[in-house]
């Protein structure tokens, strides 16, 4: 499902903390910067389906390696298969944000928000493609990334290695496990036959008590 530019623009505004009534001047600037972002980004993604076994505190993939996380194991309980996904907007976006941070800080903040909206959209597009390749009665659980809940950031390395994501999409880690390029995602998504409520939205989210969106009466949209 293609997402309209208006929707992505609203999403970028939301990441800037603006819920409704975007001032026209700002809306125009978001629009301009979103266009610059789309021209600059080189979006790429790679994924693969694994056989999994969800334990108590970790999930094992293809009997070969495990990703730690109690919440993740809980979400994947009942799933026989899961997708590992790596997606990135490419390093040109990092360079652009870095340049704007030195020359026009306000634009840098806006472009950063646009890039966050865009990487999320890229992940949703990938999820759409994954779903298209599966049986009609299959569902995807929520997308769960290292650094979220109790899955350590360091677990990203296993996803990058398992997908050869450095070679495939140019994704690497810093010594402190930050993804490079910055506007990138590594994630685990369970595949299941029955749709449980906690597969999307706030009920299954470990951050529901401290979420800034919820405090404002909204949700992050995942």
């Amino acid at each position, binding site marked *: 499902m293609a997402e309209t530019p208006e929707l992505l623009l609203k999403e970028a505004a939301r990441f800037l903390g603006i819920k409704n009534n975007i001032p026209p001047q700002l809306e125009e600037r978001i629009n301009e910067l979103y266009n610059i972002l789309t021209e600059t980004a080189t979006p790429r993604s790679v994924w693969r389906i694994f056989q999994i076994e969800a334990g108590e505190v970790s999930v094992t*993939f*293809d009997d070969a390696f495990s990703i730690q996380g109690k919440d993740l194991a809980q979400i994947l309980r009942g799933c026989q298969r899961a997708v590992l996904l790596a997606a990135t907007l490419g390093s040109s976006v*990092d360079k652009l944000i870095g340049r704007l941070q030195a020359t026009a800080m306000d634009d840098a903040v806006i472009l950063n928000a646009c890039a966050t909206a865009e990487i999320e959209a890229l992940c949703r597009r990938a999820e759409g493609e994954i779903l298209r390749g599966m049986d009609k009665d299959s569902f995807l659980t929520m997308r769960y990334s290292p650094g979220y809940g109790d899955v350590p950031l360091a677990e990203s390395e296993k996803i990058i290695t398992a997908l050869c994501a450095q070679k495939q999409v140019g994704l690497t880690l*810093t010594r402190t496990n930050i993804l*490079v390029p910055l506007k990138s995602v590594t994630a685990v998504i369970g595949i299941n036959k029955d749709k449980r409520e906690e597969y999307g939205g706030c009920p299954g989210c470990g951050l529901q008590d401290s979420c800034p969106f919820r405090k404002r009466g909204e949700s992050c949209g995942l």
Partner: protein
Amino acid sequence: MGFKIPDDRILIFDGAMGTMLQNRGLKVGGIPELLNITNIELIGAIHKEYLTAGADVISANTFGANRFKAEKAGRPLEELVIPAVKAAKREASAYRNKFVALDIGPCGRVLQPTGDLPFEEAVEVFAEVVRAGSDAGADLILL
């Protein structure tokens, strides 16, 4: 033996190592270079297959051997590099005019300012692989 590309000859390189290892049971996410310590016979057998198939240059199982990987594997870098080059040399020596390449892949970290790897450290990361590989007798380096 010194390596010089012959004017009158086309040199054939070998194929991939990782897929050969996975076909022989290396698990996804496993460290291929650890096999240089734990199962060097397997690495030698793969080199032999490529040589038998007609490869003139075989690449040592060192593509991912660098200090970061070595740290993760809990082994000194030299233990990953030296047996790999030596095993390839051993197989190549059974033939005439075959060469061994020290295979060097990306180190997995990105240079500053995009990433967090300082230039000087990057130089050292690659230099120490080159030193170990050339000490072990590699004929050439494949980048």
